[in-house]
């Protein structure tokens, strides 16, 4: 563009120059013409030769008149002489001045000749009075006669001078002609240049015009893009100028307020805009617009949320501009707000029951603890756990379990007063946060009420279920610093309730924390014991009470702790299962038992207890195979004892493992039969080799006829299914006799032998082989 401007400037300068040249040319032309005119005048003005030749003629006429007087003495002839003389005198005076004199003065000789002649003619004047006298006339004639020759010579000179003058004039004219021609040529060249310049200028203008059009088109395209961008914004956009007129508004803005799309093009004032919104637009937005008007008067960026009664929410930003106007965006965030609320609800609530979840419960507890007074009305956390929920879930299916959870949560909710918040903390665990009530009495009262309410049978899928819950209560005291601590305390109380028989509640006691600490210590020690191999196996013989002799020895695990002494498995196996080290311990037990059994008589089996959790890890097969291979023990001498809980979960996998073990030749026994569910279904699902009747039945056989009947029934069923039975916990001869009578093939108990370390077992085995008590 700058180049164009430069070029146009140059063109202008050239233009001006040419026009100046034209003006100068015209002036010069005028002067040339004037000069030429003058020259032409000069050329035609004076005819010297004519004047001088007239002088000759007039001289000759005077001579003739004088000559006439010689013969004609009439006055007319004399008058004629005087007239001719006067005419000649007139000529002489003409020649003696003006141009002719200038001509004469050019040549001194010529001037002298003329003056001499003039003098002679003047001399004739004094003869004129007596001219009638022929002698005088003769004298006059003689005086002027030679003069004609002189005048002729002057005339010839004049002729020559005139020719020269003409030549001179012609030269001047010729010079002027050339100047004229040059001038015309110059003007023609200038004209051509002017035309070329005009053409060039037009072309430049054409280019500029084309470029201007392109720029205009580009601007229009930009404008279209801008419009497209503005109209595709999700926000309504408005720009007001310093006077409060709406100078720009996108489609979204117009539609949001229920106005025509072209509202921005009309630049309405703020008042006009309000009026339109009120009359034809969305009336419910008028207040928002008015509040925005107030916002516009403040010269600082701002944003706000505006909520309408119909639930809509708008996000509005306002930014003042330098020129006094302002730019604002309006966004309908209703959907976003709803989603946010939904997300927040989902993040803080349990989807199944609609109760707050653990995170929300924890946050509420934190809040309650933070704002608690120093009195005994501090917040309380009650934790509830449905007893045997897992069993219900496993046996009746997940939908029933979920229905149970919903029913329980419904009942919990229904009996909660306003100062309580209920929550589902996960699984079958519920929590209640109670505030502003005298503690722990209020919590205990609430728990009792809940227990009564929940004890009413629920109808689950046609099955009436009585819900029992284990409950832990922990009240905040002045030392409580966090919700986590309070939740942990309630959890400890809950665990205590579970441990102490379930279906009950326990208040948190600092002693529980101590036992929890002890448990943690035990966990550390247990891990250490595994690393240091502080376990040993004791063995209790199982007697064949039909043929006599020792049928097998059950391996029983002992933890020999340096601080605590010998610890029985009941006290640490649950912990080992919980902290996930049961697999290692189980493998170790299998390995050691198999090696030890190799030292016994080849007809004595070794029984090893297997935890249900060992089935969860797929390594059990490998562990068994490894133990057998390492020891060289025959598979059929290994008897794995499992409890029915093994069959509760993951049944297909478990059954497959059991079948494979059995295919290897390993025996499988059902341990502790008679406790728990003792479902006969389990017996049908897997062909056990042996059933061990729990010692709780055996204990009663000598006093209760029922127990004897049950033993007999179990033995009978087992026999029918091709299984033998072992009676556990035989302590007296009478018990022995009864179980023998009941049909048990094997018996185990203190009557025969206590569990013994391996070293003490071997001599005992020889002794027992001859034991008369074992023989019928």
């Amino acid at each position: 563009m700058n180049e164009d401007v430069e070029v146009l400037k140059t063109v202008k300068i050239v233009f001006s120059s040419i026009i100046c040249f034209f003006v100068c040319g015209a002036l010069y032309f005028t002067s040339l013409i004037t000069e030429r005119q003058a020259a032409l005048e000069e050329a035609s003005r004076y005819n010297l030769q004519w004047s001088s030749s007239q002088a000759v003629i007039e001289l000759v006429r005077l001579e003739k008149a004088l000559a006439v007087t010689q013969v004609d003495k009439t006055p007319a002839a004399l008058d004629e002489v005087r007239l001719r003389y006067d005419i000649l005198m007139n000529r002489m005076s003409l020649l003696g001045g003006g141009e002719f004199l200038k001509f004469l003065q050019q040549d001194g000789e010529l001037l002298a000749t003329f003056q001499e002649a003039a003098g002679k003619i003047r001399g004739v004047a004094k003869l004129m009075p007596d001219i009638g006298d022929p002698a005088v006339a003769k004298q006059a004639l003689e005086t002027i006669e030679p003069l004609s020759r002189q005048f002729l010579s002057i005339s010839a000179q004049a002729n020559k001078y005139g020719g020269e003058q003409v030549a001179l004039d012609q030269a001047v004219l010729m010079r002027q002609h050339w100047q004229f021609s040059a001038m015309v040529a110059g003007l023609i060249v200038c004209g051509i240049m002017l035309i070329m310049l005009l053409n060039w200028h037009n072309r430049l203008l054409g280019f500029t015009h084309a470029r201007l059009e392109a720029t205009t088109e580009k601007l229009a395209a930009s404008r279209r893009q801008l419009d497209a961008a503005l109209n595709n914004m999700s926000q309504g956009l408005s720009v007001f100028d310093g006077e409060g007129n709406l100078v720009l508004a996108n489609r979204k803005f117009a539609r949001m307020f229920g106005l025509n799309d072209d509202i921005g093009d009309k630049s309405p004032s703020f008042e006009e805009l309000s009026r339109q919104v009120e009359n034809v637009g969305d009336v419910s937005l008028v207040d928002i617009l008015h509040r925005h008007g107030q916002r516009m008067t403040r010269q600082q960026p701002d944003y706000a949320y505006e909520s309408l009664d119909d639930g809509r929410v708008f996000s509005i930003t306002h930014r003042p501009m330098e020129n006094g106007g302002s730019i604002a965006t309006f966004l309908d965030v209703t959907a976003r707000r709803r989603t946010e609320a939904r997300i927040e609800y989902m993040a803080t609530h349990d989807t199944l029951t609609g109760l707050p979840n653990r995170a929300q419960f924890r946050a509420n507890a934190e809040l309650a603890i933070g704002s608690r007074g120093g009195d005994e009305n501090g917040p309380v956390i009650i934790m509830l756990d449905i007893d045997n929920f897992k069993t219900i879930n496993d046996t009746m299916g997940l939908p029933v379990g979920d229905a149970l959870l919903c029913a329980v949560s419904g009942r919990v909710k229904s009996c909660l007063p306003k100062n309580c918040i209920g929550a589902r903390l996960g699984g079958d665990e519920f929590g209640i946060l109670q505030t502003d009530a005298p503690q722990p009495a209020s919590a205990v009262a609430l728990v009792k009420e809940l227990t009564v309410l929940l004890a009413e049978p629920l109808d689950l899928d046609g099955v009436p279920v009585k819900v029992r819950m284990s409950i832990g209560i922990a009240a905040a005291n002045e030392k409580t610093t966090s919700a986590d601590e309070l939740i942990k305390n309630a959890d400890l109380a809950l665990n205590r309730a579970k441990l102490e028989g379930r279906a009950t509640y326990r208040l948190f006691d600092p002693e529980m924390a101590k036992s929890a600490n002890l448990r943690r210590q035990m966990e550390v020690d247990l891990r250490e014991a595994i690393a240091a191999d502080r376990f040993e196996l004791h063995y209790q013989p199982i007697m064949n009470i039909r043929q006599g002799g020792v049928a097998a020895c059950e391996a029983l695990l002992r933890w020999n702790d340096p601080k605590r002494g010998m610890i029985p498995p009941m006290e640490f196996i649950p912990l080992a299962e919980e902290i996930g080290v049961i697999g290692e311990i189980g493998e170790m037990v299998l390995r050691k038992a198999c090696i030890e059994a190799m030292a016994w008589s080849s007809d004595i089996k070794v029984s090893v207890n297997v935890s249900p959790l060992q089935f969860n890890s797929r390594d059990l097969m490998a562990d068994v195979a490894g133990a057998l291979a390492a020891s060289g023990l025959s598979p059929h001498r290994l008897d794995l004892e499992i409890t029915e809980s093994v069959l509760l979960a993951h049944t297909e996998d478990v059954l497959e493992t059991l079948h494979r073990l059995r295919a290897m030749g390993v025996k499988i026994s059902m341990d502790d039969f008679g406790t728990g569910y003792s479902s006969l279904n389990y017996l049908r699902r897997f062909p056990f080799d042996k059933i061990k009747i729990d010692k709780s039945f055996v204990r009663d056989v000598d006093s209760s006829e029922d127990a004897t009947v049950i033993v007999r029934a179990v033995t009978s069923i087992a026999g029918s299914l091709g299984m033998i039975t072992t009676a556990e916990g035989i302590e007296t001869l009478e018990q022995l006799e009864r179980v023998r009578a009941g049909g048990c093939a094997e018996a185990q108990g203190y009557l025969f032998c206590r569990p013994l370390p391996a070293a003490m077992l071997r001599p005992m085995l020889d002794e027992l082989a001859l034991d008369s008590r074992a023989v019928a």
Partner: protein
Amino acid sequence: MTRLMASVGAFGDRILVTALNDYTSEVPIEDFQKYGVILALKRNGQYMPVSDKGPLFIVYPFDSVPELKSQKFYSRSAWQVARMEVK
């Protein structure tokens, strides 16, 4: 000259002027009206002698009308006028 023409009752568009020396010149009559041409008889109160352009001299106003300064009008401005013939 206009008055002279009127007083002699001249009809025609030009006059043929003949001088004493037989010089002749044609003068259009319209010149007289147009330029105010005079027929001089006296100069400074004195009759002009033949020896000084007398007795009659047709005079154009050369000094007040510059366009007259040309050979055309110089030739019409005849002196020593002897005869005027209206044509």
